[in-house]
């Protein structure tokens, strides 16, 4: 096998120097103000002195910050680095960032508190301890200088990498070693918002340089000496088992090294049970995959083989008209009021299964030797992957190394996947390092998809045309039914009498988090119905929302901004329409205004999506807006084109020819505007612009055509008008 040249000049080498010596090369970034190097710098003193688990400082004052979270395109590394640098107070040009070591994390008392990435949690919920890490390092540097100069720490100023006190002056680099030995009697407090110098600014993301020249390493790119390749197939129907296979039929093909059967096992760790699967191992992925495709395999598909979306849909629609199995009176009791009748508004909605399909098909490289286990995997949590590998191999966590690499998108799938188990199991059985790649087809078939949802709402309007009472009946599938509640049970519209009910439709399709889980579907249902109520009551949809959320400052702020910048109107000529929607999720309130044109034959053009976000604070407006563009495109993909076709217990559309995504020509202009409350509240950004987008489009289509879209994908509907 050809290895990439590894030379000290162009690569930082992480030499694991154990039996056989695993070596991995990573390109240095080409040019960037603040740059990232990858590897394991804590093992490399040349990188600087470790002040705490979060950072090292070298003689020249270069600070290397360790990011415990996954970089999957959301700008996680940059967020961590800016948070630390803000408190540390170093020139941004001196900042580097690396992915932190999971082995250290699990063996040394979890110094990073948490290495998981998801739920838009990084800034939202981790900022206190990340800021703390920077502040603590700064105070220790100050303490070291104070001691050296014989002054009190309060007399030392730390600013932009320089410590001063009177006429005394020194750099962070000079005091790094001394600072490493300092113990503080009391940890400092994080600084106030008004004192921010770096946060709140447009800092370019740090991971870009390696992503314009092909040098960023994703799990699928990892190459280690002696590595072989495996292609796997799990039962196409979840819960099915391998019955038989005929390895002899493919054994003689070039490069084939063996076959590994993977047994179904229940895992201790949530969401990562190993499915019954078969793997063909070869000296190249193409040979492994081609042989696997040709190998006769028989599955016992199990009872799941009868499952279909059509069946689920039929049952859900029957349940919609029945009282919910689970019910909650949120306010008052709407039932007697609805029973009396009057101006009643009813709407039912449904959305199908959807898959993450990160652009990088999931892949993992594992090396299981007598001494240690190494893994580079598709994941959103290197520490969880480490524990999973330890569990699978029966090793001590200290002997397992789960390496951080870039992720080619993950969107929730990286939290729930048995791929790393498969990789370590195959390596264990064949005794060689192995790279396992899921084909796109396997990725979709094995997806822990976004669940489908159904909802039926009924409301009765008062004499002002506002809802007096409302019943919401959500229908979720049985694997993760709670996703059916999010954003509905606690909706912001204070209908005086409101009751929430839920039904469950049985299904065995695995479910997992998927960018804005729950809210992504429920935003569509509730915000479409909000427009239906407003229109039935003779209200302008924007004014209606203002009225219904009176006193709710974050909502009012977003709605006021929407009104100010969107030019929203319901009075456009036929064929044109604007629609609005607001969804609160992941700690943020986000409004969308869609402008669409629907031609006579029903061709839809989404001209523009305006997104107004209120996350309290925003630490990097530029990076936040990039997430806005991305999550808008993401939700539009599903709402317009998506829909996994579940038939015969498995998804039938398993590649991009049949599972369609948003493409370049259809992408509307997205504008991102902020309306921040700025009152010590931190919301998420990685997935919050998605949920309000589809309902805004559906509401706009209504004004353009008079047609109410109640299911997605929207483009399946005939939108033509005469």
């Amino acid at each position, binding site marked *: 096998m050809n290895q990439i040249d590894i030379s000290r000049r162009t690569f930082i080498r992480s030499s694991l120097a154990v039996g056989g010596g695993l070596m991995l090369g990573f390109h240095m970034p080409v040019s960037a103000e603040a740059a990232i190097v990858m590897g394991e710098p804590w093992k490399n003193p040349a990188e600087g002195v470790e002040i705490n688990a979060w950072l090292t400082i070298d003689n020249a004052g270069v600070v290397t910050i360790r990011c415990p979270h996954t970089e999957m395109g959301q700008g996680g590394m940059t967020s961590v680095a800016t948070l630390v640098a803000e408190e540390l107070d170093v020139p941004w040009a001196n900042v580097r960032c690396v992915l932190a070591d999971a082995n250290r994390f699990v063996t040394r008392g979890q110094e990073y508190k948490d290495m998981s990435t998801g739920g838009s949690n990084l800034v939202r919920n981790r900022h206190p301890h990340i800021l703390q890490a920077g502040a603590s390092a700064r105070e220790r540097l100050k303490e070291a200088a104070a001691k050296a100069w014989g002054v009190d720490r309060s007399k030392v100023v730390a600013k932009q990498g320089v410590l001063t006190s009177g006429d005394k002056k020194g750099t962070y680099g000079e005091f790094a070693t001394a600072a490493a030995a300092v113990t503080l009697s009391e940890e400092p407090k994080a600084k106030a918002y008004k004192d921010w110098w770096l946060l709140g600014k447009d800092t370019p993301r740090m991971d870009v340089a390696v992503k314009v020249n092909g040098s960023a390493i994703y799990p699928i790119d990892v190459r280690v000496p002696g590595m072989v390749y495996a292609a796997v197939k799990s039962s196409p129907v979840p819960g099915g088992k391998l019955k038989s296979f005929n390895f002899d039929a493919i054994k003689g093909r070039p490069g084939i090294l063996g076959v590994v059967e993977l047994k179904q096992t229940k895992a201790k760790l949530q969401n990562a049970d190993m499915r019954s699967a078969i793997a063909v191992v070869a000296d190249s992925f193409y040979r492994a995959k081609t042989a696997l495709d040709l190998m006769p395999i028989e599955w016992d598909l199990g009872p799941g083989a009868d499952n279909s979306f059509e069946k689920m849909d039929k049952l859900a629609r029957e349940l919609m008209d029945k009282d919910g199995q689970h019910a909650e009176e949120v306010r008052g009791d709407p039932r007697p009021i609805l029973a009396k009748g009057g101006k009643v508004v009813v709407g039912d909605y449904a959305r199908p299964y959807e898959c993450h399909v990160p652009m990088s098909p999931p892949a993992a490289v594992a090396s299981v030797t007598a001494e240690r286990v190494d893994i580079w995997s598709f994941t959103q949590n290197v520490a969880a992957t480490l524990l999973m590998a330890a569990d699978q191999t029966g090793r001590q966590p200290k002997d397992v190394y789960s390496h951080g690499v870039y992720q080619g998108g993950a969107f929730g799938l990286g939290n729930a996947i048995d791929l790393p188990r498969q990789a370590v199991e195959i390596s264990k059985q064949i005794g060689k390092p192995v790279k396992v790649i899921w084909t796109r087809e396997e990725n979709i078939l094995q997806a822990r998809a976004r669940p489908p949802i159904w909802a039926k709402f009924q409301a009765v309007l008062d004499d002002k045309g506002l809802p007096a009472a409302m019943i919401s009946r959500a229908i979720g599938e049985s694997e993760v039914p709670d996703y059916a509640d999010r954003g509905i049970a606690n909706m912001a519209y204070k209908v005086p009498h409101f009751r929430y009910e839920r039904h469950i439709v049985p299904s065995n399709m695995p479910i997992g988090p998927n960018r804005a889980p729950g809210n992504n579907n429920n935003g569509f249902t509730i915000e479409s119905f909000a427009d239906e109520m407003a229109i039935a009551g003779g209200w302008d949809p924007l004014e209606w929302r203002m009225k219904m959320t009176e006193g709710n400052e974050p909502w009012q702020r977003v709605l006021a901004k929407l009104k100010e910048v969107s030019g929203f109107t319901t009075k456009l000529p036929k064929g044109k329409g604007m629609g609005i929607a607001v969804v609160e999720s992941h700690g943020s309130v986000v409004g969308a205004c869609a402008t669409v044109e629907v031609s006579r*034959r029903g061709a839809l053009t989404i001209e523009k999506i305006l997104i107004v976000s209120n996350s309290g604070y925003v630490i990097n407006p530029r990076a936040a807006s990039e997430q806005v563009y991305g999550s808008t495109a993401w939700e539009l993909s599903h709402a317009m084109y998506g829909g996994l076709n579940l038939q015969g217990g498995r998804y039938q559309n398993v590649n991009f020819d049949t599972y369609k995504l948003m*493409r*370049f020509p259809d992408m509307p202009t997205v504008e991102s505007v902020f309306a921040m409350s700025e009152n010590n509240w931190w919301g998420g950004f990685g997935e919050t612009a998605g949920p309000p987008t589809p309902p805004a489009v559906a509401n706009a289509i209504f004004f353009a055509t008079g047609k109410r879209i109640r299911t997605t994908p929207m483009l399946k509907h005939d939108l033509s008008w005469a």
Partner: protein
Amino acid sequence: MKKALVRIFVALVLAGAGAIAWAMRFPEIAPIAKPDAAKFDKELVKRGEKLAGLGNCHVCHTKPGGKEFAGGLALPTPFGTIHTTNITPDVETGIGSWSEQAFIRAMHEGVDRHGRNLYPAFPFDYYSKVTEADLKAIYAFLMSRPAVSQKPTDNSLAFPFNIRLLLAGWNFLFHEKGEFKPDPSKDAEWNRGAYLVEGLGHCGACHTPRNMFGAAPKSGTNVYAGAVAEGWYVPPLNASTPAPIPWTAKALVNYLIDGWDGHHGIAAGPMTAVATDLYEQSEDDVFAIAAYVMSIKGGPRPQAEQEKITTEALATATKLEWGHPEAPPVPNDPVMQKGAKVFEAQCSTCHKQGGKPAPLGLATVLYAPDASNLILATFKGIQPPRGVLDRSMPPREAQISDDEMTALATFIRARFTKKPAWTGTEALVKKIRSGAH
């Protein structure tokens, strides 16, 4: 020998007609100073741009990689190769010195400013139907394009076709003069459609077979009966279409705008540019075109019948798709086996059960009289029309040998249709490969 006789006959007829025409030849129209582009009314120019799109002017008057409207595209005709002219407002090499009147005369009569007859590859026999008002808009649009100095390439026509004067005779025989006259018995949409199809759209120029004089008749059974253009088979627009699912107005509208319809397939060859131009047009105009074309087909079928045929054809085609559990096995014949192997290797990633392309059994190209479109599409690939940019097909010329292509075409025709095998496929493959097609 036969060919020579035909040629003599043609020459005699044309010469006779030419003599008659001599008396009615056209005078030169005096050159004008190049009009100031800024002086044209903006709205008029905009309207002209749309109309020029409906007439597909840029398609012929632009050579590959060349400046738009500067001409130079080689048009192979049975009589030799014609090169399109420069219609940018360049005074020396283009139409910069043409007055509006000269332009209108060219469009209506097929003569240039000097009074010389133009070859009917320029479809003035259709453009003559266009109203003066529309032509003035197109003139304003063309005259406000950037002037490009590019000398027209000389045509290489064989005797006697290189004698321009004979074209006057052609005109006399085949050119029906006069702008479009609406038919009061039909509704406004139909009339608009007829105006566009018979005029600027010049659909018949490709869809009507030309007679031995290279003229496309405007009446008779042959009108819109399908033909060959630039080597591509052009399916009929009339009731004789071989498409397994009959066209509906809605399918036509979608096909014309997107260049694709799920029950018929994708526009390819010269039709790609037509669909791309229509993508930019007002949808009402395309609805009008569809209404008129439907009347050429003899009107829509009763809905129940249409639905029945559609359901059945769709079911049959779906079952024949590659990978369908009920698909028939490949016959034990070496050519079929070979074709199937090539299909599996080169085509089946996309053309498969539930795949993105329309089912092959519904694709009109498989019902064509010969394999030319199939071979051309396979070798050259399909550039997607503007309305469906993600539906391209990569060229396979380098990956498929002549033998393989022949076997592939034979296999595809047998597998996906019930039609008799194509003949002459092997020779066609060679011809297309050599570029002589």
